[in-house]
Every structure is written in C-alpha cells, then in structure tokens.
C-alpha cells in the first residue's frame, strides 16, 4: 500500500503518483470559444448552478443573521415561554433550550455506546456473516425510514403498560408514552446510523499493519480493538457523534409527536432529574414550529430569534466536524475535503 493510497481512499487509487523528479506539465486550460453552442450553454449552466448554491447558502445565513440580531434579546434566554397572544408577553425560550440539551444528552448517551459497538462488530468481527448482513440492512432501513414513522413507532413502544415508569400514567392506567426519555430514545435511533457508519468506515480504513503489530505483541483481538484500534479512530467516533448530535438537534417531527405541544417543562413527580426525564417539554425546533404561522403561537419574531440560535448551534457543530476531519490536510482527488466525503458515506452504509 503506497502512502498516497492510504491518505486519500478511493480517489487517488486510480492514479499512481509520478516517480520522483518527474516534472508535471499541466496543459493550458481549454478555451470554450471553439465549443459548439450547446456545450457552451451547458458550461454556463454549470457556473450558474455553482454560484447559485453559494448565493442560496449565503442568503439563508445572512437572512437569519439579520432577523436574529434584530429580534434576539438577552432576556429571551432566561425567560420561560408563557401562553399569550401578545408577542411582548409570551416569554423567552429558556425551557426549549434546556429541552434541547436534555434530548441531545439522552439521545447521544444511548446512541454512542451502541453505535460504536455495532460499528466495531461489523468492521472487525462480522460473524456470522448472515447476521452481519442482516444488521447492516436493518441499520440501512433505519437510516432510510422517515423520522415521523420512527416517532410513531416510538409512541407505540413507550405507551406500553410496563414502560409506564418512563413517562406518566393516567388515572385509568393508560400510559401517556410522551416524555423526554421517550424522545431521547427515539432520537438515539435517528443518530445511530451515523455513528455506526463513521466507526465502521474508520476501522476499515485503518491499515492492517496496526492490527498485525498488535497481534505480534501477543494481544488478543479484543484487547487490540480496545487498546489500539478504538484509540486510533477516536476523532472519527467524535465526528459521528457530532453528526448525530446535529441531526438530533435539528429534528422536529420526533419532538412534536413524543413530547407533545407543551412549551414549558412539565415535570412528573417530585424526584428532580427523573421527574424531568419522565415529563414533557419542548425543544428549540418545536418552539420554532409552534411560533411560526403554521403553529399555534404565531409569533414570528420569537421564531426568528430561536431559529437564529438553532442555526448558530448547527453551524458550530458543522465547524467541529470540519475541524475533526480536515486536520490531516486536504486529500487529493477532486479537491473535496474529507468532511465533504462524510455526507457520502454517512448517507448510505454499504455504499461500497
């Protein structure tokens, strides 16, 4: 395995590096003047689309920035939402921010260990192979299932009588099935494919000499995984987790179905932490939805302010992913960054 092939998986495998000392002559750029008209139109379209995408992204960010700065107010962060038809009296979004943190925390706490374990098992063991293949397709089905359907499924599960301790039980014995715990658990299912994919992808990319060196020192496969391989892919696991976090924070459908439309934190019982987890509330996404004209609150200024906060969080997470993945420099091959390649393999698991 040459060092270049190791650096840029996939792309540079086709083109071997020139022997040292060879001058690389670069052909002058072809002028489009000699092209047929149709080709020139297509060329112009390519440019239009490229610039257009930049403009759309710039437009979204600038628009949210302007609206966010205009309507954001420090006291929005410390006030709880209050039901009021007047925008000046309907409070801030303290509870939704806490709710977002709770859901993200519960979701990642469930998804990260399971995801890393599954990814490791798929990449390093994968036996019996029929089971591995079945698990792979199962994860792929989860990745492809709409989040509303996942939420519906979650509601059935958590409304079972024996799971009543995770949400609240009505007087007649019916289980409500809506709680932070339920939402977090379903969110974990949403984040799982991303974590599995990054773990698996990173493990298959690790050179075999690492494993061989470890075996040569007399380590068992299990110790090798724990002491050599997993530490080596720590940044990739972190990347998968942050990607999962981003998806959890951005999802509205699961929140709306599994937390209901309460805006404030509704505790169940008197135990401090458990009570909140069993209770319901809201997150930034559901807050935005209910304050948009489509929801019940119809307070666009509040929605803009909350959306700006949400966008900033998402941008920070995006920046973390970029930082985590591009530390090794840009791989050659199309000049696409590693973080860009993440979209490819996290969107489909057995893509290869």
């Amino acid at each position, binding site marked *: 395995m040459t060092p270049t092939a190791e650096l840029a998986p996939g792309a540079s495998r086709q083109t071997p590096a020139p022997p040292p000392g060879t001058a690389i002559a670069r052909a002058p750029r072809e002028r489009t003047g000699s092209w047929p008209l149709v080709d020139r139109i297509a060329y112009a379209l*390519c440019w239009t*689309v490229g610039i257009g995408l930049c403009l*759309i992204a710039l437009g979204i960010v600038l628009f949210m920035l302007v609206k966010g700065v205009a309507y954001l107010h420090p006291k929005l962060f410390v006030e709880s939402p209050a039901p009021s038809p007047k925008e000046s009296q309907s409070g801030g979004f303290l509870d939704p921010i806490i709710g977002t943190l709770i859901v993200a925390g519960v979701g990642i706490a469930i998804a990260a260990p399971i995801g890393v374990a599954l990814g490791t098992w798929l990449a390093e063991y994968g036996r019996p192979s029929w089971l591995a293949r079945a698990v792979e397709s199962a994860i792929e089905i989860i990745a492809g299932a709409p989040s509303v359907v996942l939420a519906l499924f979650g509601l059935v599960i958590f409304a079972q009588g024996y799971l009543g301790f995770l949400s609240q039980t009505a007087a007649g014995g019916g289980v409500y099935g809506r709680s932070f715990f339920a939402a977090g658990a379903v969110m974990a299912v949403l984040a799982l494919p991303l974590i599995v994919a990054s773990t698996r992808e990173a493990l298959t990319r690790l050179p075999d000499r690492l494993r061989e060196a470890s075996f040569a020192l007399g380590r068992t496969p299990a110790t090798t995984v724990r002491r050599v391989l997993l530490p080596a892919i720590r940044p990739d696991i972190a990347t998968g987790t942050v990607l999962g976090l981003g998806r959890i924070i951005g999802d509205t459908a699961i929140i*709306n179905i599994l937390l209901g439309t309460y805006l404030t934190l509704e505790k169940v019982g008197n135990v401090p932490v458990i009570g909140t987890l069993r209770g319901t509330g809201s997150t930034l996404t559901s807050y935005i939805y209910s304050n948009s004209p489509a929801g019940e609150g119809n307070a666009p200024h509040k*929605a803009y302010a909350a959306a700006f906060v949400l966008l900033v969080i998402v941008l920070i997470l995006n920046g973390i992913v970029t930082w985590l993945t591009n530390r090794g420099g840009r791989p050659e*091959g199309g000049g696409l960054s590693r973080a860009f390649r993440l979209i490819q393999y996290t969107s489909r698991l057995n893509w290869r």
Partner: protein
Amino acid sequence: MLVLIGAMLVTVFIKAWPSFAHNGLSWFGPGGDVDTQLRAMQEVKALPGHSIYYFRAWPLIWGTLLTTVLAVLLALVVSTLAAIFLTEFAPPALRRTLDPVIRLLAAVPSVIYGLIGILVIAPYINNHLISNARKASVGYVVQLNGADVMTATLILTVMILPIMTAISAGAFAAVPAAWREGSLALGVNRWRTIWRVSLHAARPAIAAATVLATARALGEAVMLAMVAGGRGFAPNLLDGVTALFEPVRPLAATIFQNSEGLTIAPLGHTIYAIGAVLLVSAAMLSFGGWAAKQRFKRYGVRT
C-alpha cells in the same frame, strides 16, 4: 437491533390494520374530502352513510407524488450540474467555498427551511407570482395563498440537493483520469468528454443518489407541513400552471399535523396506516436503489 426493526414493522402494521381492513384497496383511491374525513375521525362522529374508518387517501398520495417527483427531477438536473462544476470547472478558490456551502445546506434543520419558506417565499409567491385572475379562476374550489406545491417543491429541492451533489461529485472525482484522457486525446472537447465519459461512468452513483433523495423527500414532514398549504387537496393537472399554485398536504406532513389525535382510536389507526405506507415506500425505494446499482455495477466506477 433486528428485534427492534421487526417489532417496528409488526407494531406499525398491527396499528394500521383496522384502517386498511375497513377501506380495502380504495384506501388509496380518491373520494370525498380527506380533511372532512380526518376531522370526523377526530370527533369520533362517522360521516353519514360511511363507517368511522372511511378514508380515501388519494389527495395526500397525489400531493406526495407531486412534490417528491418534481423536487427530485429538479434536483437531479441541478445536482448533476453542480457536481460537474465542483469537480471539473470550479477554480480552486470557488471549490473551497462550495464544499462548506454544500455541507451547510445539508445541515440546516428542516424547521428553519420551513420558517423561511412560510415567512419569506410563500408571501413572495402570493404577492408577485399569483395574479388575482388566477386566484379567481379556482376560487370556487380552493384558495391560493402562496403556500403551495411550488413553494414546497423549491424548498424541498434545496433540501435534497446537498446529498445528491455530494454523492455525484464523489463519483465524478473517482472516474479514472485515463478514461477521460482517452476521450480528450481523440479531440473531444471537455464538456463532451464529461457528458459522454464521466457521466456514464457515474451513473450508478447518480441512481443511488436519486433513490436516497427520493426517500428523504418522501419522509420530509415538518417543512412540508409548514409550507405546502396544509390542506388535503389534489391539484388538478388540467388547470395547467395554476396546479402548481394549489395547496397540498403530503403523507408525512399529515402524520405530523395530526400527531395530537393519535390517542383517538380511529384517527390513530388511520395515521399509523399512513406511516405504514411511507415505511413500505421507503423500503421499496431502498430495494429499487439496490437493484439499479446491480444493473449498473458492471460499467461504472465505484466510489
């Protein structure tokens, strides 16, 4: 894991069964106003002459088909061009800009897209693109207010673009240089080379990207619930362009908007039936993508 998936399929279908059983195959057909039917279920008052489960989902299915197919077709063209631009034509500086731009577009939560759609794009379309004559022409059936197929399709396109562009760009970047150089050496210009060689080699990836994007478009609930009009109306294609300005409510958005009524038995069963339909469509898409990939595998590049 497997148990979870199995349980998921089984529970959703068990919950959905009463709705299918009462309506049979005409569940998928047209008939009456869906919104009236759903409201009747919510109030647990059967419509005169029908069972409480009476439900004809055609307007919802038609809305889903319209938005999904239009958005995917639009995104297919745009994303292919964007991928070509990104890998072949863009100057390095612009490429370094586009790369994070596409990741940003992929990361923006759908509720923010929906917010921009309903507060900016829908009013714009309502004020500038829909003339009063057009509103009057269909005024006796449906009110046009800018939250419509058009708005939904445009935003949906932007939402599924990044993923399609990323996958196609990966495939374009992986086309062996020798293949293109062979074509260039024959005197074919760069665009024709890309069109004839790279595009053909990238077909499996483009097919897979399309399938993925379709699945995402099918499952998008929040944004569509906000901007598609929220009315179970089936736009009539005979209206011509006006059909694009008519409101719809796709299947996933219907689930989302009725989530409060899940505990009311008939409505709950119907919502689960919609969920089952979505789940089956997603699974079929997954299988279709796999089959398409098998067919193309022999020719194309693999990224």
